[in-house]
Every structure is written in structure tokens, then in C-alpha cells.
């Protein structure tokens, strides 16, 4: 028996995970947050209940209309069974690896080892949902319908469900019991748009030039923060950032904050990238410049 302990090299508490493709590139996957998972499940649960109620109403009206009570009953029994067990399995076995709820929240189930998502894995991950959720709930419902749901039993069922429900919060990879057993995890899989090129956008206009001292003020972290500020384009933050840079670099105000920041961004970016090419990577303003 071997306990795998990783003392001293705990991975950082982010949701980024290293994931190397067969081509040897690390994709740095981003795991789904607990909130996104819960949201996806709620959407699925709502759709499930909605469908179940719709089917029931439909079949009851069909039954009242006199279309063979037996067929209606069979359809309902089998339909409910397929919905309960098949909803998650069939959708996740499909090409998208996601239920409708997961698709809406931009999530996807993938195998932790990067291989194909096999049928076995999907079944294992969703069969465990039975004890995570349906078992305590149906137990509770059964007792309640018989009027026998005393406080202790309710508490026990809620605790049981609670342990499994909050299990993803107690491990770094946000794994459910089902994920643990099936060797899967749930990752963010959203489409991002390529933002505009901040430097090329102003290529036509004349540019400000900056002294080395002014460009030595900041590192990569500040550069990328500036990129965010420029892309978001909120006036007050642009004004604040421009004022700060001008004050630090001792540059007089020329009343064109956006133009000033764009030019400063371009110049700083070009300078830091030149440094990177010769092996000087300056992470932030506290790092030594040269």
C-alpha cells in the first residue's frame, strides 16, 4: 500500500491545471468553479423536473382521453427511469461531453488523463449521483409521505446529502465522488473572442516617445493590468491610471488620457518584449529592471 503524499510541493490554490497535450504543449486548463457547477446542475434539475411534469400532465390527459391506461403507465414508468438515469449519461456520452446545463454555463466533462471520455467513465460518474442526491432525497420523501419524517431522520438525510454535495469544495480539483471514481473532471470550455490589437489600432497616429527612465517604472504585471484598463475603457480608471503614470514619470498632462496610455502601453510592451528576447523577464515593478 502506498500513500501518495505531496508535502512541500502543494500546487497553488488556483483552478488552473497543467495539462500537456501529446504535442507537448501545456494547455493550462481552467477547472470549473463550484458556483458554475452548482448553476449547471440547477439548470439541469429544473429542465428535468419540467420535463417530468410535462410528460406526466401529457400522459394523464391522454389517459383521461381513454388511450389505453396500460400503455400510459408503462410510458410513464420507463420515461421517468430514463430521464432520471439517462439525462446526464446520454448527454455526456454525446460529442459535447456536457448536459444542456453545462453547455449553458460553458462547462465540459473531460477525462483527467486527457484521453477519450469513455462510456464507462460517464456511467460511473453519474451512477454515483444516486447516492449523492437521489438516495437521501427519495428516502426523505418516502418518510415524509408516510408522515414519519422525524427530526433526526431529516437531519441525517440532510447531513448525508450535505457531505456529498459539498465534497467538491473540500478538494482542490473540485471533484465530486463520481468524478473521483470515473477519473474525470469538469473544465471551463468557453469561446473567447480575440481582442483588438491595442498597438496596431493607433498605428496611423503620431506617437509619443518616452524616456528609458519612464519605461523602467513598470514590469509585466503592470503592463497587463494596463491592458485590462484600456480594453475595458472605463473613463475614471483610465484617468486615474494616466495621472499616476504621469506623476511617477514626471510627464506634464496633455489632456489626452487614452492616447497617452495607448502610446505608453505600446512603448512599454515593445521594451519588455525586447528584454524577454534576450532573457530578461521583468515580472513586476518590484523586480530589478536590468
Amino acid at each position, binding site marked *: 500500500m502506498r500513500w501518495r503524499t505531496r508535502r512541500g510541493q502543494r500546487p497553488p490554490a488556483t483552478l488552473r491545471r497543467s495539462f500537456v497535450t501529446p504535442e507537448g504543449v501545456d494547455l493550462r486548463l481552467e477547472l470549473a468553479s463550484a458556483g458554475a457547477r452548482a448553476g449547471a446542475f440547477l439548470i439541469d434539475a429544473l429542465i428535468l423536473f419540467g420535463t417530468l411534469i410535462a410528460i406526466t400532465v401529457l400522459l394523464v390527459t391522454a389517459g383521461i382521453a381513454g388511450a389505453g391506461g396500460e400503455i400510459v403507465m408503462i410510458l410513464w414508468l420507463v420515461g421517468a427511469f430514463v430521464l432520471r438515469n439517462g439525462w446526464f449519461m446520454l448527454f455526456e*456520452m454525446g460529442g459535447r461531453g456536457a448536459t444542456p446545463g453545462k453547455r449553458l454555463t460553458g462547462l465540459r466533462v473531460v477525462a483527467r488523463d486527457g484521453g*477519450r471520455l469513455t*462510456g464507462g467513465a460517464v456511467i460511473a460518474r453519474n*451512477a454515483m449521483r444516486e447516492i449523492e442526491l437521489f*438516495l437521501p432525497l427519495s428516502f426523505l420523501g418516502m418518510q415524509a409521505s408516510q408522515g414519519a419524517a422525524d427530526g433526526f431522520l431529516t437531519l441525517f438525510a440532510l447531513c448525508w446529502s450535505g457531505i456529498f454535495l459539498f465534497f467538491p469544495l473540500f478538494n482542490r480539483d473540485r471533484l465530486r465522488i463520481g468524478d473521483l471514481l470515473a477519473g474525470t473532471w469538469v473544465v471551463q470550455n468557453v469561446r*473567447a473572442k480575440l481582442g483588438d*490589437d491595442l498597438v496596431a489600432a493607433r498605428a496611423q497616429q503620431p506617437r509619443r516617445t518616452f524616456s528609458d527612465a519612464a519605461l523602467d517604472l513598470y514590469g509585466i504585471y503592470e503592463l497587463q493590468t494596463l491592458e485590462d484598463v484600456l*480594453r475595458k475603457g472605463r473613463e475614471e480608471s483610465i484617468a486615474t491610471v494616466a495621472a499616476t503614470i504621469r506623476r511617477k514619470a514626471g510627464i506634464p498632462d496633455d489632456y489626452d488620457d487614452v492616447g497617452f496610455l495607448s502610446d505608453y502601453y505600446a512603448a512599454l510592451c515593445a521594451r519588455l518584449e525586447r528584454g524577454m528576447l534576450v532573457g530578461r523577464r521583468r515580472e513586476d515593478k518590484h523586480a530589478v529592471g536590468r
Partner: protein
Amino acid sequence: MSALVDVRAAAVPLVNASRFRAAHEAEWNRLDALLTRMEKKSVRALDEEDILALPLLYRSALSSLSVARETSLDRSLVTYLEQLCTRAYFQLYGVPESAVRQARRFFGSGWPLAVQALWRETLVCLLLTVAGAVAGYWLVATDTSWYYSIIPDAMAGGRDPSASMETLRGTIYGEQKGGMLATFAAYLFTHNSQVAIFAFALGFAFTVPTVLLLLYNGLSLGAMICLFAQKGLGFGFVGWLTIHGSTEMFAIILAGAAGMRIGTAVAFPGRDARTESAVRAGRGAAVAMAGVVLMLLVAGLLEGIGRQTIQSDATRYGIGLAMLAGWLAYFYLPRRREGSDALAY
């Protein structure tokens, strides 16, 4: 220092991202468009030329990502390439096979091999059930009042020690009332499958609940047999049970075995890390579980329809034993192992 506006500075400080975008943006956009089409519909939405281009575009995007990470400080560019490559990776490597191929593999090799791999657990579960049945028989034989504690009233449905021989005979040879045979079959199927899935999932708790479930299953079996045997109906009752029971009991034993495999893999991982061992057991056992649900579907049909329409003991035994032989042959006859069986492991 003053920030003079240098009018002559047409020499734009060109950053790597700009050059990079100019050189590759068309490729990225094409890959993005292809991926979007695949995600919205499927691979079949692409024509031949696109499919041939896909791996090339993917690799070029990957190399763009590597270069961009090392040389460019444009964060939006790196983020964009990361998600583009991730989406492409999962479209190229992570997509499951088509449903038809998965089904063919499942019936051809995945299911029997998964069941074969559980042979040790299956034997233990069989022994547990038999032990439970013997204990149940013995308990009721020594003191009939045990029967009431083993079988709940709802399940007994009048079949208890106080019932007359005629009543008991009626339950095994009589016509089902109301004639809702198919409904009964559907109910049995869904109910039993749900219980089997429980037995599987509960195995995670170090197999204890699974063992209890199997023992109880055996106990009630033994108690029932004893009840009917005391009234001289033992042979008929076993026949009534065998027609579907051989399939159903086998399925429940397999479900228990699958749960047991998971529980023991978690408790005693051997040389593997605990999670790796759990994953291997979980995937294999889940394939067997999918098969169990199918077996229970067959059992439900046999029980709901076959049992009520077939009244002769010999036919009941014949069908039940033939089913058992069929399952055993399907699962355990040696078969060629395919090189890479993705479904089983």
C-alpha cells in the same frame, strides 16, 4: 522628462503580438470557425477539405500558443489562443466514439470482459447470497415467526405462514389480477434497476452496504422458499422463481460484485495510488453495471409477462435454466481480447 509628440515617428514600436497576429490571424479564424461548426453540429458538418486541414490548423495554433507565451505580452492574445487550442484538443482527442461503434464494442467485448474481470467478486457475492438463503431457510424452518421479521408485510402480500396452501398455490399458478402484465414488467424493471444502481454506488462505502444488501436478498429468498416448502410447494415455487430469477439474481449479484470491486479498490489499492485504483475499478465496474440494467430489463419482461402466461413447471425451469446457461456462455466463454479496449478500461 517631457512626452513630446514625435510627428516623424512613423517608426511605430511594433510589438510581437501585432506581427504575430498579422501572420497567423487568418489560420486562427479558420480553426475557430471549424470548431464552432463541430461544436454546434458534429464532425459530419465539415467537408473533406476542412477535415484534412483540421489537424494542421490545430498544430499551428498550438505552436502559435507556445511562441506567444514566450514572446508576447498581449494577454488577450495568449488567453484567446489557450481557449482555441483547448477547444481544438477536445474536438480532436476527447470526443467519444459514435453511438453505434460504442454499442458494438460494448456488446462485442466490453460487457463480457468487464463481467469476467469481476469473477472473484462475483463468486463472493454468490456465496453471500447462498449463505443468506441458507440462513433464511434455517431460521424460518426452526421458528416461523422469523418470517415476519425478514419479509415486510408489503412485500409478502398475503404470502405468510398463516396462509393456506390454496392461497400460496394461487400466488404461483394463478392468473395475475387486472391483466396489467406489461405495466408490472415495466415497474419491476425500473424498480430493480434502481436498486441495482444503489448497490453499485453504495459499494463506494467500503462495500459494507453492498454486502448487507446481498445478505438480505439471500435471507428473504431463503425465507420464502422455506415457507413454500413447508406447504409442499417448494418445487413449484422455485420454478416460479427460476424463470426470471436466474437472470435477476445473476444481475443483482453482478451489481453487488461491481460495487464490491469499487469498495475494495478504494480500501485496498495495492501498488497503485488510491485514486488511480478507484478510477480503474470504477470505469470497468460501470460497464458491467450498464449490462446489469439490460439484464434486469430482460428479467422484468420474463417476470411480468412470461411467468404469468407460462404455467407449467417444466417450461418455467427450462426457460430459467436456458437463460442462465446463455448468460454464463456469453460472459465466461473465452474470447479474443482486443488490443485496446477503451470501454472496459
